[in-house]
């Protein structure tokens, strides 16, 4: 069963002569448990595609489906509710709330989803432990390294057990060691059945995915299955570590 799918997805920016198709007639299917990497040069429409899949932007045309439910026609309110339970975002710039500690940042989506404070705290504690930051729960983002911040962001994305994690250049601001940490966590999650769509222009990160889609000028130009080819997760790690 597809967790995420898109049909004829189009996103236009601007009007008249200045009109640009950031996403141009894209069809996509992401089955449960798959880690999909979307690659392409800057400005090719990768991030826009991710925003469309997560309901952060509305498409100009086409359809977006999440867990069998069409979402591009939903109201803002319904989209927000859908994001709470079904989508986890990880951004290149982390986008943590600077005045909240690591644990408080992770708790927030759980609280927004209506969970009790105790339950939100329990989940945050578990997830911070899982990403190796149990000892940093009370630290503010400004007291953490880039890699640690991204791990907090990953824990936050997972706190409501989403159907899919949408990651936009998750290692774009990280050094090699931190990138490795993040990819290890992604692999653990993938092994546990978590679905991912990762936008990246780092080939080493893309190589860790099950499937790689290449984008150019808003369109998919290549769709390659990597798992089992020897260039998948382990190959990616080897590349990084090499």
């Amino acid at each position, binding site marked *: 069963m597809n967790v995420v799918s898109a049909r004829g997805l189009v996103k236009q920016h601007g009007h008249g002569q200045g009109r640009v198709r950031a996403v141009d007639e894209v069809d996509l299917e992401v089955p449960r448990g798959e880690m999909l990497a979307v690659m392409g040069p800057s400005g090719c429409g990768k*991030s*826009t595609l991710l*925003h469309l899949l*997560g309901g*952060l*932007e509305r498409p100009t045309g086409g359809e977006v489906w999440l867990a069998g439910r069409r979402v591009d026609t939903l109201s*803002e*309110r319904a989209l*927000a*509710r859908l*994001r*709470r*339970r079904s989508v986890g*975002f990880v*951004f*290149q*710039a982390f*986008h*943590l*709330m*600077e*005045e*909240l*500690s690591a644990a*408080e940042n992770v*708790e*927030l*989506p759980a*609280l*927004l*989803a*209506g969970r009790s*404070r105790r339950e*939100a705290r329990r989940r945050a504690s578990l997830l911070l432990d899982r990403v190796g930051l149990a000892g940093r729960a*009370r630290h*503010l983002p*400004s007291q953490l390294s880039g890699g640690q911040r991204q791990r907090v962001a990953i824990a*936050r994305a997972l706190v*409501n057990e989403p159907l899919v994690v949408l990651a936009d250049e998750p290692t774009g601001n990280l050094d090699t060691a931190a990138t490795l940490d993040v990819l290890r966590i992604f692999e653990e999650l993938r092994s546990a059945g978590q679905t991912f769509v990762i936008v990246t222009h780092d080939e080493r990160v893309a190589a860790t995915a099950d499937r790689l889609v290449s984008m150019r000028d808003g369109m998919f130009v290549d769709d390659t299955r990597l798992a089992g080819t020897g260039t998948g997760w382990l190959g990616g790690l080897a590349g990084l570590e090499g």
Partner: protein
Amino acid sequence: MGRTVLVFRLVLADVRRHKAQAAMLLLAVTVATATLALGLSLGGATQTLYEETRAATAGPDVVALAPDPGPDVTPALASLAHAPEVVAHNGPYRIVYATLTAHRTASLVVVHGAADKPGAVDRPLVTSGHWVRSGGAVLERGFATALGAGVGDRVTISGRTYPVVGIAVTAATPVFPWAPQIGPGGGPSDGGGLVWLTQSDARALASRDLPVTMAMDLKLRDPAATEAFIDAHRHTFNTRVNFHSWQFMAHQDTVMLNDTQPILVVGSWLLSFLAITGVAALAAGRAAEQTRRAGLLKAVGATPGLIAAVLLTEYLALALLADALGLAVARLAEPAIATPTASRIGGVGGPTGAIIIATTVLAVAVAALSALPPTLRALRTATVTALAVTAHRPRHRPWLTALSALLPTPLLLGLRLTARRPGRAVLHGCSTAVTLIAITALITYDAQPRWGFAQHREGWGPGLSGLPDLRADHDGRLLLAVSVLLIALATVNTVTLTWSTAMEARANMAIARTLGATPGQISAGLSIAQLLPALPGAVAGVPLGILLSGQVTTLPVSWIAAAALVILLATTALTAVPARFAARRPVAQTLSAEAA
């Protein structure tokens, strides 16, 4: 010269980029300086008006009033007329205590028996019609205005009808409604209007068993020596004689404005506070931008002095322009506010040098208090840091975060937004308190029972109404005007504060939306962030407003409670629009901008 031109061009460019903020600073400071200038001008204005009227009407230096009937009155007044200090006199003449009705309105009135041709002392200035003639009445202008009567109308004085032949002003009595000076028999006066009849008409009126006081206007050799003259003659007669000096009458004129000045001066303080609140919120909202601007200027070699000049000149120049506007507004409004009665002639002089200094200090203080902190911060920030500066990072407040986690989402967001900028929350609370102070004072003032002036103690009977209480009406109108200005500024402040909060928190709100907060929850959170500090503000504003109202005998509790509720509802409504607008900004766009 080049440096000045550079500063001017940079300031002008910034004002052009932030027109709305410049307009708000201009409006806030104009309102505050105009109110202060008016408040400070009033004392001098009434004095000026009395002196001009006194000069134009040959006003007496002393008025002697003999309230008791008897044979000793005439010799007593005659001896006063011949006292060595006296150079001229008018009278003796009768003052008859009567009632007057016109246009279904009734009033107590004193009738002066006047000579056909006024003498050297007290020559009332006829402003309409002509002076008294047999069978015709001349009304004092302040009284006529309150009555709505003019030349050609008919008035009934204690049962006899007279045509109004003229309207005049005099400096021999205080302004309406204090023309009687003393009551019948020398007792306290309930106030009333002044009418002149011929001496024979006044005598005929007095023959109807109406109370009479004999009076005489005196001109002294030394007009400043009235107290010495009164002391010398106070107890030298076999009958009671009351003396009213021109200084006393001039002072009595100011009684009309006794409450006006505090309303304006206190109003100007409150308006200034709101001006500082609003402008400080704007300045704080632009702090990061100003710091980056300072960094840019430093990077291209500007000295700290030049940077300070660029950052401060904008606020100072706008504040000084607003000061000039405020003084001009005060000059235009002063005649209407300083002369609630039409009993005096002449014009007011406008703000004096001292008042101009006071308002300029106020304007500069508003600008300095608002702009200095962000300017100093910008100057102290290192160039590289300044170029990369973002909005000031809020403090971590674990107890508040934990507390808010127990609350529903809008409250959670609202409380956390409030906690991001506690200083701004305090300002907003104070802004709400100021609004409530004004409204509570207005409601409480309006609810006080008033005896009124020129009213008959037993009432006027069916079909007749008394004159309005000029002083209370004047003060009520002024209090209303000041309250409206305060509410207008507080409204602008509320919208500004909400918008500043929304703009500063836009990244966090966008993150919250990616995590599943709905636009409605964000919008409600932003509104609640303004409502939370407004609540204690409203609670504090009510007692302060009652305190400011002075002597309170009736407390309109339900009205005040309703006002507090309306303010909170209005805050919610006012914040809803910018909050809703801010909550619907595209999330992806906001996050991309923040990441850039």
